[in-house]
Every structure is written in structure tokens, then in C-alpha cells.
């Protein structure tokens, strides 16, 4: 069943390109342009399929390779030191007892570089989206113009979405790192929207490749106005969808291997939009006891 947002999840970082896995750490800095292409498996109707082998895009430079190796080794050293202190570099008691955690905060350009923005320009639409720091370098502002005009390629039926997605955490030598949110049960967002409904997507990089389009979604309704809003979304409310279609078999999200978080806007209303985000955190709300908001029994039984 189609979700209100359009079918394709933009800037999908869920594709895998195994060929790149080994080469990527050293040559990651050299082939930045091909990153987005190797993550998305969408090909625009009418465009030619990619025939150039991916190694052609890489610039084989010895000096750059040595520099990259140095950075990766220093990252590895830092990781080892952090591992000796405790999970994620914090002490074990802090990891076990913490009830709040700040995941993403927007105070500088580096914090903005951890996010990727995209819009339906990838499928041929006309929406625009931009990300910049807010006033006083406090908070990020995601703004742009949504345009629901459908691209005329014969296949697309809906259009008009913009999204912002966090880059997955990367360890030394381009290994994937996952966030462990099992101590928390709510997502805490301090945002100032303009009244539009957004959708929050969580991607847990799953083990099986046929689940690679699975996303857990829920809505974030902003009120608009000059006041900052503190929105708490419990993880029990997130429902499972795959390629934009809500699935029949629902299960609560597994919080121990979270890869990325994203915000999407696709509320079918043309016009400018604006969302200011102060920080994104996690909260262990002791008053929230719900395990899962949707029924898990067979809801489409054989008649």
C-alpha cells in the first residue's frame, strides 16, 4: 500500500557496491563523485545505463593514497583507544545509565556535512532544497520549494519530495559503524517548523539484501510559529515500509544497529517550506511503556 510520500527514497544510501568496499578507504577521497551513484539503484527512465566500469572514475595518485592511509591509520588508533575506554569512547557506566543522548547537533559547517540533502530532481522533478546554518550559527535550516509537477517520462505518477538524511557512521578503512540505541525508547527533536508534516525515516542496515529498502517511518507534525518545539517520537510508533509501501508484517524496530536517520517532506502542497533543527537526541522515557503500536497478528488472512 502506498505511503503518502512518493515511492522512491531519495539519496538512498542503502545500496551496496561490494567492489568498492576494499578500494574505498584509500580511494574514497579520490572518487567522491561516484559515491551517490553507487548507493542508489534507480535509473531514470530514458537515461542510458552505466557502462563505464567504476574503477575508471578513480584517480590513482600515490601521494593522495599515502595521505588517505595516514588518516585511516590515525582513525584506527583513535578507535582502539576509545574501545579500551568503553563503548563509543564513553565509560561503561555512562553507557548503561544514560537516559538522554545528543546524537546530532548543528553548530558548525562540519555538523552540516554529516547530512545529505536531496529532492525529486533525481527523478526529474523540480523541487529545490538547501541546507544552511541558522542564525548565529545555531541550528540548521532546511529550506526550499516543493513542486509537485510530475516529470513526463511515462512511468512516474507522483512527484514532489525533499529530504535530508544523515550519512552513515564510518569507521577507519570505511567500515560501517552502527549506532546502538537500545537503551532509549524515544527520539527527541528540537525543531521549529512551519506547520508542514514531515516524515522521519530510520534505516537499520539489514543483513539480508532483499531487506535493503526497508525503512521505519513515522510522522513529525510541526506547528509553525516562532517557538521551538520539542517533539518526542517513541520508537514503538515507527512502522515498517519497503520502497515506500507500508508492509503487512509489522514488527518493532530493532534499535541495536541503526544506520541513518532522515527527514522527508512530501505533503503534496506546492510552495516553499522551512524547517529549523536545533538538535536531535535520544530519550529514555520512563513513562512510555508501549512496546509496539501496531498489531502483529496476521491482518491480511486468507479468506
Amino acid at each position, binding site marked *: 500500500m*502506498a505511503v503518502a510520500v512518493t515511492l522512491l527514497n531519495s539519496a538512498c544510501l542503502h545500496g551496496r557496491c561490494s567492489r568498492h568496499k576494499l578500494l574505498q578507504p584509500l580511494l574514497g577521497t579520490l572518487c567522491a563523485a561516484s559515491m551517490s551513484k553507487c548507493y542508489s539503484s534507480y535509473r531514470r527512465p530514458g537515461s542510458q545505463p552505466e557502462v563505464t566500469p567504476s574503477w575508471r572514475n578513480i584517480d590513482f595518485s600515490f601521494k593522495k593514497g599515502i595521505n588517505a592511509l595516514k588518516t585511516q591509520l590515525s582513525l584506527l588508533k583513535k578507535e582502539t583507544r576509545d574501545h579500551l575506554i568503553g563503548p563509543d569512547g564513553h565509560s561503561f557506566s555512562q553507557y548503561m545509565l544514560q537516559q*538522554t543522548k545528543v546524537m546530532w547537533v548543528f553548530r558548525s559547517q562540519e555538523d552540516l556535512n554529516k547530512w545529505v540533502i536531496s529532492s525529486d530532481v533525481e527523478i526529474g522533478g523540480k523541487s529545490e532544497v538547501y541546507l544552511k546554518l541558522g542564525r548565529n550559527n545555531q541550528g540548521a535550516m532546511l529550506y526550499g520549494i516543493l513542486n509537485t509537477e510530475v516529470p513526463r517520462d511515462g512511468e*512516474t505518477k*507522483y512527484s514532489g519530495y525533499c529530504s535530508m538524511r544523515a550519512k552513515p557512521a564510518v569507521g577507519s578503512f570505511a567500515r560501517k559503524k552502527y549506532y546502538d540505541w537500545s537503551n532509549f525508547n524515544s527520539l527527541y527533536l528540537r525543531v521549529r517548523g*512551519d506547520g508542514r508534516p514531515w516524515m522521519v525515516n530510520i534505516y537499520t542496515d539489514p543483513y539480508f539484501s532483499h531487506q535493503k529498502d526497508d525503512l521505519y517511518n513515522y510522522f513529525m507534525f510541526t506547528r*509553525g510559529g516562532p*517557538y521551538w518545539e520539542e517533539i518526542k517520537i517513541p520508537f514503538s510508533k515507527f512502522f515498517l515500509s519497503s520502497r515506500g509501501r*507500508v508492509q503487512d508484517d509489522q514488527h518493532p524496530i530493532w534499535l541495536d544497529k541503526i544506520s541513518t536517520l532522515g527527514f522527508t517532506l512530501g505533503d503534496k502542497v506546492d510552495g516553499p517550506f522551512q524547517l529549523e533543527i536545533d538538535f536531535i537526541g535520544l530519550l529514555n522515557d520512563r513513562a512510555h511503556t508501549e512496546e509496539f503500536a501496531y498489531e502483529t497478528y496476521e491482518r491480511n488472512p486468507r479468506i
Partner: protein
Amino acid sequence: MRLSWARAFPLRLWGGCRGPKMRRVTGIEWAARPMCHSSSDAPEPPSDHGSQNTPRDEEQGGPAAFAAALEELERAPGRRLGRLELVAAALAAMPALGVARQLDAYNRLLRLLPRGPWVPRGPLHRLFAPFPRQQECGLQVLEQMERYGVMPDAETRFLLLAVFGPRSRPVRKCQRMLYWLPRMLHANPYPLPAQLPPPGLAAACLGLRRIANDPDARLSVYQQPQPEQGDNEGSTQPYIVGIQSAEQQELLARHGPEHPVFVEGPFPRPPPPRLFYYVLRGDPLPPHLREPPPDPERSLYYPLYLDLDLERGPWDDDEFDVNEVEEGPVFALCMAGTGDQRTLAKWIAGLQQTNPVLGQTPVIFRLGDGDSSAGSPGDGDALHLEGSRAAELEPPEVAWGRRAQGEG
């Protein structure tokens, strides 16, 4: 009527749509469209009847035209071919005619489909995914209902069961919609009313009520639009409507005349109606000028400041280890027909009636930086304009000097 399989087999191989070469359009011509259309412009409804052209009255607009077209079809169903194209054309026309949110229109459309011939006969038939285009047509109807937030009801489900059979994709989709739509359609804690007022004063009042945090806030109309109603509402004189709560009034009174207040805007409030609001706010006070919290030893018999949160215990810590974005207090909000300084100055003059301290406070207009593209409040020199009401404001040099001192 269902034929026995022996007679049905040569006639309808898998029951697929015959294709354009078999369509001999004789008495009835439809303004048909291909099934996988993606155009956004709405075609005319199938209204070109050949010999059965009856005059329809379209004085009441789109819904009446659609209803009339459906009645015509119900009266004389015509040939069995071209039904899928008919449904696709009707679905494409519904948004333009304004019936996309009416369940009745969808039910009547589904009633035009035949009941029985598209039901697979037996498990062997079902194995081969029969009637794919027909089922996609049913799915298109349901998808459009879902897009416009229309809940299917028992009649829809009954019709789908009759047309497609119990284990078909449209019936499954209907089941899913009946499960998910009640959750998703009513999840918004700030829903817009079903009937939005036309853009103008009424929409501004609605918008301000939604933005203001306080249900007790007082909404005041400082200027009525001239002319008052109609399409060109406010063309001669724009409306000005403001909102302020008692707390904000108190805060403004305590803010003191030595610190200036800023009128900032326009900030967007887009989802229909499209509105902009302006804010009267002050700078956050530097830490040494803020009031300290009340000393608990001032009163030993009862607490002056009570913060009971009985759901939480002392072991619960909900504070985040981050310095939140700090902004100055908001004193009042306003929406106006035009965003120029004179209109907003009238708003300030109206606010002064209830907040006499505004008479001595310098008011600085920072218009045009609604997207917070200004730098810090201290160095917004290039952008703000001094208030033009010289009678109430201090001379600019004094205001600059005071601001420089007040920044801290």
C-alpha cells in the same frame, strides 16, 4: 453472466483487455486515456456521447457534471469494451471537478464495473494471476482514494468483492486501507479544519490562533481590510491582526525601556492558507542582567516556586547535554496584509494601547530577513531600519548607544 469454462475459454483468453484494434467504437466515444498516463493536466470527463447526447446543466459546477456523466453511464452502460479506459479517464478528471474527496463518486464508479466476469474461477485459474489490467484498474481507484484521504466503507468493500473476488489485490488493498488510514489520517495533533477560510482576514485569524502557544491569548484586529470581503479583500487598506497573551504582556512590561525590541519578519506559515507572520521580540538578556531564581529562604513556611513532576522520580534525568538555541522572548505576533513598515508601525501603535511601555522603548524594524539569514542580532546593522515614529522613539544616536551598552 458466467459461462461455463468450455465456452468461455476461446472467448476470453485470460480475460485480458483486448487492445486498441478490437475497439470498434460505434455509438459511444470516450475521451479515453492510456492506463499508464502521467500527465498532470486533467482531461474532460467522458462526455462526448454520439447519439445519446443529452444537455447537462453545469451551472452547479464540477460535481454536478460528474454526477450527470455517471448517471448517463448508469442509464446506458453501452458496450463491454473500454471500461478500464473509462475508469482511468474518470479518475483523472475527478480532482479537476472537485469530487476527489467524495466516497460516493468512487462507489458509483466502481458500480460501473462488471460483477462476476473478472472473478477467477478456482485455484488453478488464480495460479496464473488472472485479469492483471483489471486488478490494476481497481488498484488505481483505491490508490486515488488513499491519496485524497477517503476511507472506503462497507459498500466499497462489497463492490470490490463482487467485481474482483475475495482474494484479489484490490480487496487486499482495501483491507490494508481500512487498517492504516484511520491511524494515519488522524495522527496530526494540529489538524487544519476541513473547510479553510478564503485567504484574508479570516485565514490570518485562524493562522495566528494556531501559531500562538497560549489558548488564552487575545486576538485583536487593529485594522479591518478595505474592501472587507470578496476577491480583492484588503486591496485599498490591508488588514492587521495581532495576538498577545497575558504572559507576553507582562514580559514586555518587565523588559524595560532601555532595551530595544525588534519587529522581525516575514516568517512563512505556508501550508494552505499561505501566510506570513511578524514577531515583536527582544534580545535575550546577558546572564548578568537576568533575574536570579527566587531564593527559597525568602519564605520558610511555604515554597515560592513549585515544580512537582509526580510521574518522574529524582533518578530520572531528562536534560540534554547541549546548549539549546537561545532566542529572546517573543512579545506579540502579527499578521498583516502587506509587510511594509508603515503597516507594522500601525500594529505597534495599536499594541501600545495595551502595553504603554512601548511608548518609551525603541522599536527596530528588521524586515526582510524572515529566513533568518541575518547574522547575530548585534551586527545586523545593514539590515534593520529605525522606527519612523519619531514621537515615541528616541533619537537614533541615543538608541545606538543604549544598544551598544545593552549587548554586553
